[in-house]
């Protein structure tokens, strides 16, 4: 365990930046935290979490795949892939850090998504333990310990001091390059952890019961009549999907100008009416089916294919951002009540 005074964070960030790119949560012009490329003077946000999730750095909203160009009657392939540089992402919360492992299950299993794989390989994840959770947080219900996040390095911010613990080889390697980190007792974070854990238990959603969900529950949940009322107000926008740290669907599109084509992928949302639309039409014709797809995917289908792991990390972004305040918690609570 190492430590550094909070006042010296700039020195730490500068040292990291000297070697590689550094992203930290910083407030944007609208006052929300976003992962932002650090430059001298950029302050660490005081907010609990970023508005957009940390997945953006591994799975950006738009990514060029390949290009083609017509040239003198022939078609020429244009390489658009860019090898990313090493980067550090600092201040990842436990929930978002957990989301990486969920995304890894999707993108790093065969066939491996090399774009995602490349970014993961180049990244060092420095997490930051939570101390003041929001009422919308329910990570505990998803088995995430907000007081002890994973990552290559774990940090705690306590009384003007940043505590630093390297967890992995990558983490150690980074630590070695940062001489300003001074050693400290291994139990320096224990008190804070205990406080946080106690606080987590007091959150309104701490006791979220997930027993009705998980692998094998498709039949029990698929035709529940409550889907109709749950989805009736849904606008079919992609807000929940796009702020979600675990949503991983994308569409492949092309940008054409008549003589050249740029093929790119971009986030897609299962809430969109044209999601996976095919020549025969939409497989999920109404918002009810699309809504059901999203939540059953997170709560049933994903665990079914991934050793029981839920496709949700309890970050609470969808609770805060949904225009009509419909969210996974309401779904869990409504459908968690089993019929007699």
């Amino acid at each position: 365990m190492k430590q550094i005074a909070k006042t010296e964070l700039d020195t730490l960030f500068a040292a990291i930046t000297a070697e590689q790119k550094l992203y930290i949560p910083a407030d944007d012009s609208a006052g929300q935290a976003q992962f932002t490329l650090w430059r001298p003077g950029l302050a660490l946000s005081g907010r609990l979490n970023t508005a957009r999730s940390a997945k953006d750095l591994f799975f950006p909203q738009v990514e060029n795949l390949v290009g083609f160009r017509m040239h003198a009657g022939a078609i020429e392939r244009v390489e658009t892939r860019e090898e990313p540089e090493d980067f550090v992402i600092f201040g990842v919360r436990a929930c978002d850090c957990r989301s990486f492992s969920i995304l890894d299950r999707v993108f790093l299993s065969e066939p491996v998504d090399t774009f995602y794989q490349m970014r993961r390989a180049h990244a060092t994840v420095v997490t930051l333990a939570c101390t003041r959770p929001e009422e919308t947080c329910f990570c505990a219900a998803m088995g995430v310990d907000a007081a002890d996040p994973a990552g290559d390095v774990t940090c705690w911010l306590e009384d003007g001091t940043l505590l630093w613990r390297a967890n992995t080889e990558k983490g150690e390697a980074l630590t070695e390059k940062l001489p300003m980190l001074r050693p400290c007792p291994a139990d320096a974070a224990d008190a804070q952890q205990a406080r946080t854990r106690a606080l987590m238990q007091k959150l309104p959603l701490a006791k979220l019961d997930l027993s009705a969900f998980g692998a094998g529950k498709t039949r029990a949940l698929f035709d529940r009549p409550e889907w109709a009322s749950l989805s009736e107000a849904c606008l079919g926008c992609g807000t929940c999907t796009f702020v979600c740290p675990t949503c991983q669907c994308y569409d492949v599109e092309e940008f054409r100008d008549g003589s050249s084509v740029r093929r790119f992928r971009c986030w897609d949302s299962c809430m969109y009416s044209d999601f996976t639309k095919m020549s025969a039409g939409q497989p999920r014709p109404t918002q009810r089916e699309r809504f059901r797809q999203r939540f059953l995917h997170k709560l049933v289908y994903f665990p079914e294919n991934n050793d029981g792991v839920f496709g949700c990390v309890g970050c609470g972004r969808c609770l805060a951002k949904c225009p009509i305040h419909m969210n996974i918690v309401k779904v869990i609570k409504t459908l968690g009540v089993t019929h007699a």
Partner: protein
Amino acid sequence: MQVNSEWKPTIVAFCCNWCSYAGADLSGTNRLSYPANVRIIRIPCSCRLNPMFILRAFQRGADGVILCGCHPGDCRYTTGNYYARRRMTLLFSMLDYLGIERARTRVEWVSAAEGAKFAATMNDFVQTVTALGENRRLEDLRCKA
């Protein structure tokens, strides 16, 4: 910023088939010259011009877009240019609001008899846009890859 004295702006001119397109023809018939970087797209009436087309042109690399239609009151379809006038007024004002140089967009009423006005308008517009330089604000830079 690359300073290139040889740089010539790309100008898209949407011309009403009944007046300005004929006006452009007339300026051709009278050999009234205007720069070659003005390219005309024929539309049936100025009211056919969807703001989308203007933005599309800017997106694809145009540096200036001009709409030429019949003088108010002379529309082949009676009212088309009146609608176009309101639409373009609002659109241009919005583009200005977004910080796009307002001189990159223009509406000019040119009748079929005004070949000279057509050429003069185009010369002036090209000059204005050339002075503004490349349209960096609305152009999609990645398209040029």
